[in-house]
């Protein structure tokens, strides 16, 4: 009888889980094609010039931005650079790459560091100039910049074989506020 009761509970939980999963797996807004507003810019993922990597797939990029990868193929440790909370560039990375909100992202890293899976927390910088300087100077760094903030001191990666200037590139950031 007890075993039956246990099985019933498991079945009930399974039904509840499946229902919740179906409910929770509504199409993610980030996976839907979004019309690009004319004034939007592409957001480039940038690395140090010495980094041999040219292209990353979106799942690879996600793993890097979530701290699940800690080394580049050349052995250098990955140093993740994030802009400060509230910056539109950061919001794009959280939404389109990490598929998390700010709280989930912070909890993810806190939990990762707590379990020991995440080796190093991201560095937070305030300005695009700071990001560019950091990536220029740190061989293992990876960050992100608007295309208009790019220059020859950093290397923009291709994502899923598309560069930031290519049609169909997936990371777009709204224009800067005029204030």
């Amino acid at each position, binding site marked *: 009888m*007890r075993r039956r009761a246990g099985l019933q*509970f498991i079945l009930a939980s399974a039904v509840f889980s499946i229902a919740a999963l179906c409910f929770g797996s509504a199409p993610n807004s980030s996976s839907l094609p979004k019309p690009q507003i004319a004034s939007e810019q592409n957001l480039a993922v940038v690395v140090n010039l*010495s980094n041999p990597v040219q292209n990353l797939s979106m*799942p690879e990029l996600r793993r890097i931005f979530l701290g699940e990868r800690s080394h580049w193929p050349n052995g250098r440790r990955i140093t993740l650079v994030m802009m400060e909370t509230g910056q539109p560039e950061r919001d794009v990375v959280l939404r389109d790459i990490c598929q998390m*909100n700010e709280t989930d992202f912070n*909890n993810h890293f*806190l939990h990762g560091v707590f*379990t020991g899976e995440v080796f190093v927390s991201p560095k937070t910088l305030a300005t695009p100039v700071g990001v560019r300087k*950091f990536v220029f100077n740190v061989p293992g760094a990876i960050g992100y910049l608007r295309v208009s903030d790019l220059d020859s001191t950093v290397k923009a990666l291709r994502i899923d074989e598309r560069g930031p200037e290519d049609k169909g590139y997936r990371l777009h950031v709204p224009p800067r506020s005029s204030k």
Partner: protein
Amino acid sequence: MKFPGPLTIRVTCALKLTGRMMVSRIFPLLLGILVNTTILRGQQLVDATAADKQTLQLLLQRIDQLEARVKQLEAAKQAAPLSLPSAPAQTSAPPASEAELQADNAVPERMDSSKTLLRMRGFGDITLHGDSQRHDTTAFSLGQLNLFITSDISEKFKFLSEIVFEGGPDNIFGETRGENNAFGVDVERMVLQYSHSDYFRLAVGRYHTAIGYYNTAYHHSTWFQTTTGRPFLFQFEDRGGILPVHTVGASASGLIPSGHLGLHYVAEVGNGRASRSPITDEPVQNVVDDQNHKAFNLALFARPDAVRGLQVGFSAYRDLLAPANLPRIGESIFAAHAVLVRSKFEWLNEVLVVRHAPSGTPRVFNTPGFYTQVSKQFGSYRPYFRYQYVNAPSTEPIFPDVGLRQGPSFGLRYDASETVAVKLQYDYTALRGQPAVNALALQVGFTF
């Protein structure tokens, strides 16, 4: 700045010459030299005063010139567009080290004797609980006060520890020790990690054994956990748990090249659990192993790209226990799990069996157990459900007190802020040969 003059050199030579003379001849000579020196120094001071004034004037003029130059450069910089240093060739001298730059732009990580390398985070919880068991009372309980400390020792090395202050007596396989309201301190984790690459990491120290999923996903903090506590299967050794939750030893882990499958491995060797019976000491062998045999654990799991948040895997643990007045007992623990963890949804499923085989007898004692836990986030609220089951034989040689226990738990977690969670949980636990226990707990867990 003063340089030795001819007079000083003369004094030095004179002293060398007089070194061989008798003391009575030295004093008059020294007296004469001293008088001469004083007279000459007085003359030099008069000349130097005039020279110093000239030097001072020259220096002041030089400062004025430099200040003017700085202003000129600042004006030119503001007028011109921002220009960054040109990109160096990839084969040219390497850029500044990470340490140098991080000192400019972010929190410094390198050794600096004037600063500590430690980073500390705290966790705690307080619970109001009551149950229907005889002699139990409804009480407020201070939970674990956990100081989680990390330190980035270098690019490849990292230190991690959990120091836990915990109240109440220990319960080791039914043996209770300690006072009800006294606090004790435990170093629950102390790990030095070395990260060579994503394919190879090595950790030494005291860590959570990679048996199943829950044990390495959740440690000594209720705030991280959805529920008010761990499943009974993964309860800590000093809280009546049946698994060797902690191991002192070495652990290697990393990725297995497997493309989109995302395979990982963990291989561990350590002291294993204490096997004295009854256990009256610390169940984790922190310092001394009671035998030369070591415990081994191997875990494999996959995190496929195709289903975000899914992890499936299994682990196999092997040890040899040597309880007093009993034959040696081979201990094997096989565990499997399938979990789906996303920001707003989690579904945890784990099953394991603890197998004890006393040598010299054909008898084998199997203790199976499982739990399933599901929760879904709605805004700040997360209702959850868990069902757990453990069935240890009544003649089980290592933990005879456990028996059969099974039942559901229902609860609601409310995140009052990003760092404070309030949980209300009801547990129903059916026990073999005893009345079932109804329990209710209200807990506040937080990080600081």
